[in-house]
């Protein structure tokens, strides 16, 4: 996989610190599964945390806590990682796990507009974000839009082009909220993306803004 578009270093630092929202976490972990370069950056960013935390003062732990922990060792069954459902490489493992190993084609996609179908992934109630899969038909031009909040998109299949270049499988668009763009999907195949947002995407033109409540993104 040839990946040209990577995560913002600020996103990787926040990921390493564990402060990203739930939806962003899934998209970032998914990209890292496919992108050794970003995975190495995330590993290094975590070293910063290790060093900062290593400098923390020690707070005495009670004898009770220590002996309780030691007495639990016998009963602590050896942890086995749950078998990750094989996604056959179609999607990154963190996403494959959420989809229960189901192929993308078999998901109950919801058609939201001509050429556009969505599939929502559940998040916990406290999460302020949204996580969904988006399938855009070949050749579709999305309305030009900015991002009221932040958004990270991972391309799973197909490709689109916008003013920043070509985005294909494995590429990630880690867009600043101030950025506006108009992605156009390439004509030969649908483009399927994993999208995490922290606030509703705001389309620019009036018709598009009218469309937004209809398609719900």
């Amino acid at each position, binding site marked *: 996989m040839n990946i040209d578009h990577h995560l*913002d*270093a*600020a996103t990787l*630092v*926040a990921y*390493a*610190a*564990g*402060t*990203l*929202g*739930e939806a962003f*976490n*899934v998209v970032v*972990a998914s990209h890292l*599964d496919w992108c050794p370069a970003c995975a190495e*950056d995330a*590993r*290094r*960013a*975590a*070293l*910063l*945390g*290790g*060093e*900062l*935390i*290593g400098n*923390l*003062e*020690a*707070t*005495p*732990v*009670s004898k009770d*806590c*220590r002996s*309780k*922990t*030691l007495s*639990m*060792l016998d009963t*602590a069954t*050896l*942890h086995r*990682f749950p078998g*990750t459902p094989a996604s056959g490489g179609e999607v990154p493992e*963190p996403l494959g*796990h*959420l989809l229960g190993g189901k192929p993308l084609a078999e998901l109950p996609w919801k058609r939201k507009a001509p050429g556009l179908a969505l599939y929502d992934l*559940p*998040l*916990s*109630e*406290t*999460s302020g974000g949204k996580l969904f899969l988006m399938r855009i038909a070949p050749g579709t031009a999305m309305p030009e839009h900015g991002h009221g909040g932040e958004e990270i998109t991972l391309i799973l299949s197909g490709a689109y082009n916008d003013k920043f270049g070509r985005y294909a499988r494995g590429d990630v668009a880690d867009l*600043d*909220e*101030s950025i506006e763009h108009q992605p156009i999907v390439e004509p030969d195949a649908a483009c399927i993306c994993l999208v995490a947002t922290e606030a509703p995407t705001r389309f620019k033109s009036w018709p598009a803004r009218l469309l937004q409540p209809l398609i719900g993104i």
Partner: protein
Amino acid sequence: MLPKDHRADPKNEDMAARRLVQRVAKNLDRAAFAELFDAFAPRVKTFIIRKGASPDLAEDLVQETMINVWTKAGYYDPAKGSVLTWIFTIARNLRIDRIRRESSRPVSELGDFDPPSDAPASEEILARKDEARSVARALGKIPREQMEILTLSFIDDLPQAEIARRLKLPLGTVKSRMRLAYGHLRKTLEQPN
């Protein structure tokens, strides 16, 4: 109780800790585990209390973290970072999950997607050996304003937007300071010693 200068040499601390984790993984060695507990549990507790947890909850999470160290020792991969970083990743994820009690998807599961890798090649371990020292060096040199943001992120667990609000800075400034801090670390790591 650890001597006060236990952080004097992070590299040696880590080499010793790796051997202990290995003994736990291979032989379920309880004495090795007790040593890990004494070395790391007090800092894990400080880390959890910093977030405002009561001492009782903090000890609960210390216990849970260390039990995870016991059960997951076989998955610790030295190529990915120090034992300290690994233990605090466990602690942080457990702490996040405790906050999101109702979450159907524990964050601690995300890390579980890292497949247990084969033992790293010895030259890779050698390359990583000086890393801890480089990280300390890099952190020692970054401007106070970047350090502040790293501390709020890694120690106080604040999201970027919350840091921006607290410091009355635009979000973009918080992000660019994070980028600069990371860029500085990368440069230090890539410099020949």
